[in-house]
C-alpha cells in the first residue's frame, strides 16, 4: 500500500501547458507570419491580456475592486511623454521609469483610498483617476487639454520603419507575457496562497495570520507599476496623447472589467478567455457602436446572474481543470 501523493499539475494541465507553449511561440514568431495590421491587432490583444490579468489579480484575488486603473495607464503615458520631451530619452527606456513613478505615486493613493471599503473603495479610485486627468489637462507643457504627439525625431531614434515595428512588438510581447508570468508566479508563491485565502474568505484568512493589509498594499503597488509601464508602451504605439485618451475610463477600465467578469474572475484562465472573446465580439460588432456597448453591458449583467464565476468558472466546476495550476491536489494511490 502506497501513500497518497501531492501534485500540482495533472495530465490535462500538462497537455494544455504544451499547447500554450506552442501558442506563445507562434505569437513570438508573429512578425514573420503576420502583416502590419495583424501585428498591431496582436499587440493590442497582448495589452488587454495584461491589463485584464492585472485587474483580475487586484479584484479577483486581493478583493480590491478598483474602477480607477485608467489612472495608472494615463500616468504611464504621460511619464513617457515627459521623458521624451523634457529629457530627450528613448521612448522605450521611459517604460521602467514610468513603473517606478507609478509605484511611488500609488503608495500615498493607497493610503487614501484604502480608507474606503468595498464599493466605496471602487468610486474612490475613480475620483483619483479623475484628479489625474484634470491635473494632466492643467499641464500646458504637456499639451494641456488638447494633448500632443511624439516628436518624429524620438521615433526615428528607434530605427527605421521595420526595425521600429519589430522593437515595439517585442517590447509589447515581453512586457505583456512577462506580466502574465509574474502574476502566475506570484499566485504560486506564499503570497499567492495568502491571496487565494483572502479571495475565499477574508475574515477566516485574517484569523489564520494572513497579513491582509500588507498583502493588499503590495498587490496594489505592483499592479499600479505594471499598469503604468504598459500605459507608457501603449502610448508609444499610439504616438499621440491627450487627457481624455490617456485617462479613458471606457478603454482602460470598463472594457477590462467586462473582459475579466465575462471570462471568469478569480482564475488565471478567465481573463485570457475574456480577452479572446472581447476581440472576437469587437471584430463582428464594433460597427454597431453604442449597441455594441449595450451588448457588453448586458452580457456582464447576465454573467453575474447566471454564472458569477464567468465562462471559465463554468468549465472549472464541470471538469475541475486548470491550464495554469496554482494550487495542489492530493492524488490517492490506485489499489
Amino acid at each position, binding site marked *: 500500500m502506497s501513500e497518497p501523493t501531492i501534485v500540482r499539475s495533472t495530465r490535462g494541465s500538462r497537455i494544455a501547458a504544451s499547447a500554450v507553449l506552442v501558442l506563445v511561440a507562434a505569437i513570438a514568431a508573429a512578425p514573420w507570419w503576420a502583416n502590419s495590421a495583424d501585428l498591431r491587432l496582436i499587440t493590442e490583444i497582448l495589452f488587454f491580456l495584461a491589463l485584464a490579468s492585472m485587474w483580475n489579480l487586484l479584484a479577483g484575488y486581493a478583493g480590491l475592486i478598483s474602477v480607477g486603473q485608467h489612472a495608472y495607464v494615463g500616468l504611464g503615458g504621460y511619464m513617457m511623454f515627459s521623458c521624451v520631451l523634457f529629457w530627450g530619452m528613448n521612448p522605450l527606456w521611459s517604460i521602467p521609469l514610468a513603473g517606478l513613478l507609478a509605484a511611488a505615486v500609488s503608495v500615498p493613493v493607497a493610503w487614501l483610498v484604502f480608507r474606503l471599503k468595498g*464599493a466605496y473603495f471602487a468610486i474612490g479610485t475613480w*475620483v483619483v483617476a479623475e*484628479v489625474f486627468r484634470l491635473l494632466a489637462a492643467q499641464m500646458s507643457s504637456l499639451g494641456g487639454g488638447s494633448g500632443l504627439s511624439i516628436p518624429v525625431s524620438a521615433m526615428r531614434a528607434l530605427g527605421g520603419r521595420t526595425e521600429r515595428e519589430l522593437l515595439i512588438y517585442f517590447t509589447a510581447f515581453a512586457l505583456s507575457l512577462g506580466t502574465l508570468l509574474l502574476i502566475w508566479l506570484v499566485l504560486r508563491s506564499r503570497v499567492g496562497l495568502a491571496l487565494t485565502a483572502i479571495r475565499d474568505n477574508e475574515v477566516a484568512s485574517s484569523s489564520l495570520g494572513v497579513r491582509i493589509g500588507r498583502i493588499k498594499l503590495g498587490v496594489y503597488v505592483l499592479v499600479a507599476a505594471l499598469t503604468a509601464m504598459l500605459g507608457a508602451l501603449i502610448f508609444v504605439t499610439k504616438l499621440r496623447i491627450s487627457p481624455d485618451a490617456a485617462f479613458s475610463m471606457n478603454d482602460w477600465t470598463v472594457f477590462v472589467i467586462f473582459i475579466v467578469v465575462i471570462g471568469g474572475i478569480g482564475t488565471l484562465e478567465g481573463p485570457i478567455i475574456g480577452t479572446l472573446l472581447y476581440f472576437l465580439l469587437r471584430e463582428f460588432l464594433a460597427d454597431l457602436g*453604442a*449597441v455594441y456597448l449595450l451588448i457588453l453591458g448586458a452580457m*456582464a*449583467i447576465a454573467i453575474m446572474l447566471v454564472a458569477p464565476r464567468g465562462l471559465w468558472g463554468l468549465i472549472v466546476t464541470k471538469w475541475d481543470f486548470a491550464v495554469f495550476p496554482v494550487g495542489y491536489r492530493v492524488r490517492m494511490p490506485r489499489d
Partner: protein
Amino acid sequence: MDWINVIIQGVLIGGLYALFAAGLSLIFGVMRLVNISHGDFIVGAAYVAFAVIQMTGLHPLVSLVIVVPLFALLGYALQLGLLNRVLGGDILPPLIVTFGLSIIVQNGLLTLFTADSRRLDAGAIEVESLNLMPGVDIGYMPLMTFVSAVAIIAGLQFLFYRTTMGRAFRATSDDGEIAQIMGLDNRKVFGWAMGLAMAVVAVAGVFLAIRANFDPFMGPSRLIFGFEAVIIGGLGNLWGTLAGGIILGVAQGIGAHIDPGWQLLAGHIAFLAILAVRPRGLFPRVD
C-alpha cells in the same frame, strides 16, 4: 463682495449635489448597495422629462408629476426584477451589475436621443433673481433647488425615523434576518427603498436639466459628486450629506473663482483632504 457671492452660489449648488447624494445614501443605508448607475439614472430622468415635455408641452417643474412616479416604479421594478438577485455577501456582483446598467443607460440614451446636449426650458423663472445686497443676487431656480433639497432631506429624515416604512428600512438595515422573522419581506422593503431613491433621482434629474445642458455621458460625474457629498458628510447621516454637498459646492466655487480649470479639481481635492483627515466623514452617524 465677490467672495460672498462665490460662497452663496456654492451653497446653493450644494443643494443640487445633496439631491444627487440623497438616493445614494438611502439605498446604501438600507441594503449596503452602491449603485454605480445612479448618476446615469439622474441623466435618464432628465431625458424622460425632456421627452414628456416634448409630448405634452408641460412646464419642466410640472413634468415632475409624471417623472417622479415613473422613476419610483422603475426603481421598484429594477430592485425586484434584478438587483435583489445579486445582493448578498459578495460585493462584486451588485457592483458589476450596476456598472453594466450604467453602460446600458448611457448608450441607450445615446441611441434614443443622440449625443446632442439638451436643456429643459423653464421660462422666465430661470433668469429672475432676488437681490440680497448690492452685487449679490440669488437666482430663483438655484434657490428653489436648494429649498427642495432641504425639504426632501427633511422628508426622508421624517420617513426614516417617524413612519412604519422607515421602521422597516431601519430594521432591515440593522439585521435583515431578524426583520424577516418579524414578518417583513426584505425583498419588498429593498424595492420600496429603491423606488424612493429613484423618486429623488427624478427630482435631481429635472433640476439638473433646468440648470445646465445635459448629454448622455454626464452621469458618472454626477455619481462622483453625490458620492463625495456622502463621504464628506459621513455615511448614514442625511443632514451630513447636505453639509457634504454644500462643502463640495463651495469648494468648486472657490476653485472656479481662482481659475476656471480648477473648478472640478478643487472639489475633488476638498474631498480627498477630508478623507485624509476624517476618514469617516465630518459627521459620521454614531452607532
